[in-house]
């Protein structure tokens, strides 16, 4: 045992420092847990103020003791490099660990340990945790809205067919690849519309007619997002090209269109489609609520898409235009074959963000009385048999939306990498 200096831990007494450090650190965590979850204060003999900070102090001492450079133990070196470079960093690390324990434990309790999973009525929920029975009972409503239970296979069938058609593009043989754009931009929307019109809406071929007011839940979220996504992209592209046009009328009309939609909140646009739009139509004509909503969201998001695409167009060097022109290409050939393929590649993250914003904006359609997932939650919450479970509902919807949006953003990152070309 040669000189042990606790202020400057070194490699010579490695094991002593490690044991002491681990001991102090564990002591800090144990103290915190006992304090928080079992209401026993093992450091109660200290004055209140110090006793409050003991977990932090113990943790800090522990981390200080194991901060040994080039210890030769790989794990320890990694640990020191990542969370324990100096005292300040160590303090932050300890606070975060404590915070995580503080937050995760009750959450875990609420989510799983104290939660009720079995049963079919409110009375089954006696524990202090979440009542997932509520979600189970209302699951059909959250997915399909007021769509009649017996007819829900129609919604499922439509979604499966559309998903299949979307995936089919992926397996196109190579020689038909050039028709892929046509397939996605024109063929798929038409087929999906026909499917939704005849299968979900019904009224023909012996299928019962279901009015759009009864559609709802997550399936409505998908329908609205799907059509808005498909339509807002080409419109946005036209607007972006229009804004960069040499023709004054085209340029300024695109510009004012874009600035108008970008300047107003979506909720007022939906208000407009609900109360103002009918005034602008000839007396007696009626456009379905759902179509009005889809048109409103499409135009709104198209303006944002246009600005994103414009960014990509501006980022291309002039030489690309000049080179294409010198080959004798006209306006459309130049843009479709040379400029847009490169520009769109550049703006994948921006477009993905716009699409994500669109999906996250769909709950707003409650303004016109259409109830998608969030709207259905608010309706279920007021049901006198099931009062007091709003938390479970919102957490459930939050998780679903999170999965959708997170996977979309991950997918866009993958696409971005795939299409990345060096210049």
């Amino acid at each position, binding site marked *: 045992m040669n000189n042990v200096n606790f202020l400057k831990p070194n490699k010579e007494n490695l094991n002593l420092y490690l044991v002491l450090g681990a001991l102090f650190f564990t002591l800090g965590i144990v103290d915190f847990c006992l304090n928080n979850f079992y209401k026993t204060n093992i450091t109660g003999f200290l004055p209140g103020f110090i006793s409050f900070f003991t977990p932090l102090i113990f943790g800090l001492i522990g981390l200080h003791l194991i901060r040994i450079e080039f210890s030769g133990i790989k794990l320890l070196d990694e640990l020191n490099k*990542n*969370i324990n*470079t100096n005292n300040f*960093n160590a303090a*932050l*690390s300890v606070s*975060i*660990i404590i915070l*995580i324990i503080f937050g995760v434990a009750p959450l875990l309790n609420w989510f799983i340990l104290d939660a009720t999973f079995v049963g079919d009525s409110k009375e089954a929920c006696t524990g202090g945790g979440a009542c997932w029975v509520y979600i189970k009972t209302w699951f059909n409503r959250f997915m399909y809205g007021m769509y009649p239970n017996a007819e829900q296979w129609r919604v499922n069938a439509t979604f499966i067919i559309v998903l299949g058609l979307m995936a089919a593009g992926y397996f196109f043989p190579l020689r038909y690849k050039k028709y892929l754009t046509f397939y996605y931009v024109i063929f798929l929307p038409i087929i999906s519309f026909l499917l939704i019109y005849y299968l979900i809406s019904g009224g023909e071929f012996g299928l019962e007619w279901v009015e759009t007011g009864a559609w709802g839940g997550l399936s409505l979220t998908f329908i609205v997002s799907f059509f808005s996504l498909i339509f807002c992209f080409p419109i946005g592209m036209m607007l972006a090209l229009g804004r960069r046009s*040499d*023709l*004054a*009328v*085209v340029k300024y*009309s695109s510009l004012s269109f874009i*600035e*108008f939609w*970008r*300047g*107003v*909140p*979506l*909720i*007022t646009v939906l*208000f*407009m489609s609900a*109360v*103002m739009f009918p*005034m*602008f*139509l*000839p*007396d007696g004509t009626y456009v379905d609520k759902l179509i009005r909503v889809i048109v409103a969201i499409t135009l709104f998001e198209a303006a944002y898409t246009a600005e994103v695409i414009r960014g990509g167009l501006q980022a291309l060097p002039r030489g690309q235009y000049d080179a294409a022109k010198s080959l004798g290409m006209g306006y459309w050939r130049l843009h479709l074959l040379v400029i847009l393929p490169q520009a769109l590649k550049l703006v994948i993250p921006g477009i993905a963000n716009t699409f*994500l914003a669109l*999906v*996250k*904006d*769909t*709950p*707003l359609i*409650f*303004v016109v009385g259409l109830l998608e997932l*969030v709207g259905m*939650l*608010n309706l279920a*919450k007021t049901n006198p048999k099931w009062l007091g479970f*709003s*938390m479970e509902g*919102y*957490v459930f*919807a*939050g998780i679903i*939306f*999170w999965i959708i*949006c*997170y996977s979309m*953003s991950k997918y866009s990152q993958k696409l971005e990498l795939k299409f990345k070309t060096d210049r």
Partner: protein
Amino acid sequence: MKFKKILPQFLTLLFIVLIFGFFTMNAQENMDTRGIQFGFGFLKQEASFDIQFSLIDYDGSRSYARAYLVGLLNTLLVSVIGIILSTILGVIIGVARLSPNYLINKTASFYVEFFRNVPLLLQIFFWYFAALRALPMPEDAPLIFGSSYMTIKGLYTIAPVWNNFDVFFGALIIAMIIIFFFNKFAKRKQEEEGKQYPKFLISLGIFIIIPALTFIVGGVDLSWSFPELKQLAKTSFTFEGGLGIPPELIALTLALTLYTATFIAENVRAGIQGIGKGQKEAAASIGLTPSQVLKLVVMPQALRIIIPPTTNQYLNLTKNSSLAAAIAYPDLVLVFAGTAMMQTGRAIEIVGITMATYLTISLSISAFMNWYNKRIAIQEK
């Protein structure tokens, strides 16, 4: 060649004129059949509805124009609070995401990934209907920090009571003007003679001393009013005095802040990462201290990257504040496009005014930002 340029323009114009013509004609006809006259005269009529939360004097006997103003101010209030808080939180999270500390880094990215991928409306509902509803009733609420109560009816906290507030406010403005000129003077001195003043300390001193003087000579007086529990009926309690912040405002601010901060954090991170390593190394090699490197080299350049997208986020926050209508916070949309429209039935005028208001706010902020961007842009040769 010329024909090729004129034809598309002509077609666009024709298309626009036709659509607008069709819409106005129908609107005219529809209004005629319903006997509505287009006009803004209704703004002067008595509104005869109450608004729960208002920054200016308002009651049902005031005009629709006044109700509009109340709504507008409430929208601006929540936007300004949201912008300030989300900037602070966003900068902290953005810097945390760059931290070499694994735990901090991961916690920050978890926060960003979580809150940006859940719809804002859902977050507002969550805070308002689920989280804030779990708070205690006024009579059971514990005292926090010796001054405030968090209850199901909102946050009650201390409020300042000023005497001669205008004198104090004037002093603040004078102090700011003096600081502005002092900084100009100090900068000139430094450029001409190389002499440095402790700018920040002197500015802070001016900022504290001049307003503080008004307490002695200006007759300014400040006291605090505390919220006190008061019994209305046998089981109904409320707080009197102090400052009451309604739960709608708290939920809306919380959701807007947490949501927008994720985007600002990403902007901050991208901005700081956008500065080349060479810049920092060059600055260090001429002998600047780490804090000077940050202040004089990294931040001025990073801000150029950060500010434009962050302004966009501020605009988004302002527009998103219109979601207030969903939890009945009396903002512009709820008061004007909601209640006022139901009462008057003037859809075209009211939706038009509401949209024009948001459009004005957006366009003026983006005009200001364009000007600012031009000013700070690098002058390349």
